[in-house]
């Protein structure tokens, strides 16, 4: 059981069931070949996805790629043009938003400004005709859960951004959903608060055991909070995997570039052996891991800045000659920009302590990377054609 003793009395029956072996999938969500069109515009194309009960699942993608559309289909505000959606194993076709076991937290929170905080939290219970005194008690309990004791009788307009966030979470939890759907709920907060709320959300999810489907366009948020991350673009799902897998072993160039900084070398695949491939490019020949299928000759080699080293001497095969140009201080580390004779730009992340030991920008240096930490993928250009 994920449920801690602290919040046991808050845990709805339905959620405790999620740990029950008899009914293992109360909070699971399955999308099967789901498409969604607005007129002729295809917002979601043939998307299949399985989200396990009790999981913190993030959907990551650039603005306008269809993330909100997916959430709205799950919560019942729009019907998919094709495909099936199952919640807890049950097909929810034809069920309205107010009949589904989901709670949506809106991008702008959508708190009711004319109601007090506790009335907001208890709104769902009011709709279920729970008596007022019980509603009030439940609202107080939930406000305790989200660390907002004493705000019951305030108006929403009197709260700060972070507090409103908590009210929205409490309001969504009040109806004891099996699935919580969160649409970029932190995007309006400032950086510090955002980081704090990340941890808070994660801990609330752990305590309640509710499935969280969390939408964001911020990769660090997705990587930090989630059990699994789905990366999507232009209405299609690109990769679904745990965060480290997404980061270290992306399935496509788009995922590699979207999830953190990366260096790219475009070139021709000359050979593959033992899971490693060799790329030939104007920068020379370089070797990298091949873990996803590569078709055709045109490939790209990706290596993250923190996996690139700088030295004055050439060491080993995976080396590139360049000159250092710029250093940008990023706090715990520094990003160094290096440019090759061809004008190709590389980013190198270094420890701040090493900054003094860096060569000056007048001498040639060598950039190295380990073939284990670089990966080969089909070139994005090739992909566009197929």
């Amino acid at each position, binding site marked *: 059981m994920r449920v801690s003793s602290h919040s046991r009395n808050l845990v709805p029956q339905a959620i405790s069931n999620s740990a029950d072996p008899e009914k293992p999938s109360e909070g699971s969500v399955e999308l099967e070949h789901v498409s969604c069109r607005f007129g002729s515009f295809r917002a979601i194309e043939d998307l299949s996805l399985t989200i396990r009960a009790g999981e913190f699942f993030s959907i990551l993608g650039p603005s306008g790629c269809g993330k909100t559309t997916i959430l*709205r289909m799950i919560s019942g*505000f*729009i*019907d998919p043009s094709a495909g099936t959606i199952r919640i807890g194993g049950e097909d929810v076709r034809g069920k*309205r938003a107010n009949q589904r076991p989901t709670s949506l937290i809106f991008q702008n929170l959508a708190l009711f400004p004319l109601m007090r905080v506790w009335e907001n939290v208890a709104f769902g219970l009011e709709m279920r005709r729970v008596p007022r005194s019980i509603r009030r008690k439940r609202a107080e309990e939930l406000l305790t859960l989200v660390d907002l004791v004493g705000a019951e009788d305030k108006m929403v307009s009197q709260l700060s951004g972070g507090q409103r966030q908590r009210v929205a979470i409490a309001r969504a939890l009040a109806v004891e959903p099996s699935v919580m759907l969160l649409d970029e709920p932190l995007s309006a907060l400032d950086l510090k608060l955002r980081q704090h709320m990340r941890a808070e959300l994660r801990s609330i999810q752990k305590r309640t055991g509710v499935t969280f489907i969390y939408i964001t366009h911020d990769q660090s948020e997705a990587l930090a909070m989630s059990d699994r991350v789905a990366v999507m673009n232009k209405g299609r799902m690109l990769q679904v995997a745990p965060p480290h897998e997404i980061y270290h072993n992306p399935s496509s160039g788009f995922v590699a570039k979207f999830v953190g900084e990366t260096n790219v070398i475009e070139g021709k695949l000359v050979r593959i052996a033992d899971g490693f491939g060799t790329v030939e490019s104007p920068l020379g020949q370089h070797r990298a891991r091949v873990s996803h299928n590569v078709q055709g000759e045109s490939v790209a080699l990706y290596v993250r800045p923190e996996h690139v080293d700088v030295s004055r001497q050439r060491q080993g095969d995976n080396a590139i000659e360049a000159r250092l140009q710029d250093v940008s201080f990023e706090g715990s580390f520094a990003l160094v920009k290096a440019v090759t004779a061809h004008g190709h730009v590389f980013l190198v992340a270094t420890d701040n302590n090493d900054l003094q030991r860096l060569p000056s920008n007048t001498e040639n240096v060598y950039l190295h990377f380990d073939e284990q930490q670089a990966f080969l993928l089909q070139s994005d250009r090739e992909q566009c054609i197929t």
Partner: protein
Amino acid sequence: MFRHSQIKIGHLYLALFLLYLLLPLGVMGGASLNDSRFPTVYPWMGLTDKWFIALWNDSRMWGALRNSVVVAIGVVLLAVPTGTAAAFVISSMSGTARTILYGALIAPVLAPGAVIGISTLLFWAKLSVPPGLHLSVLGQVSYIASLVMLLVLARLRSLDASLEEAAIDLGASHAQVLRYIVFPHLAPALTASAAVAFFQSMENFNITLFTRGTSSSDTLTVYVFSMVRGGVTPSINALALIIVSVTLLVTTTFALLRQSSKRP
């Protein structure tokens, strides 16, 4: 956010609503083209223009039309300057004085037309001024000027104060500020309020009925009213059709002009 079924219900409701709003006007206008003794469209007896000819030959109608236009022009000439001045005064004030004055100036808009008409009539009768179209003008001005004030006030509010200050900073005199900054800014509101004043005056009934005096000084609205009361012929429908067409034409061109000026 809406499911298709709900959108369909919505569109159906709105279609019925529009039909409800427009069909009566269509029936009324259509009746003038029907070759029937009564104003009706249903037993359709064939197209006729005889009601238009009857209308054309009705000299009382022409007199009433002339009166209406004269009154409307008078109202525009008086209501636009006074309403604008009132807006300036209001916008220069603040606090309770403003609230009170604002309430007093807004009152005529809400007050029933009949009451305004009667109070105008009585007030001028005290000063031994006989009723007539001139009183109609004054009575109408009292509430139409308030409408003008509302329109101008809304526009004045959007005038950036720093713009005036910048102009003065650049050496403009007050007159120049008015001439080059304030009035150009107000121009759309002034045009709109002149149009509103004209239309409101043309269609005014309550105030005019009480203040116009003898029946020789009909306005178009009062004339239509008395025609309807004293035995209907479809020539009133002919007049109605003409008025509906003219307003339709004016409003659509106005709306189209505004749209095209908004675009760039």
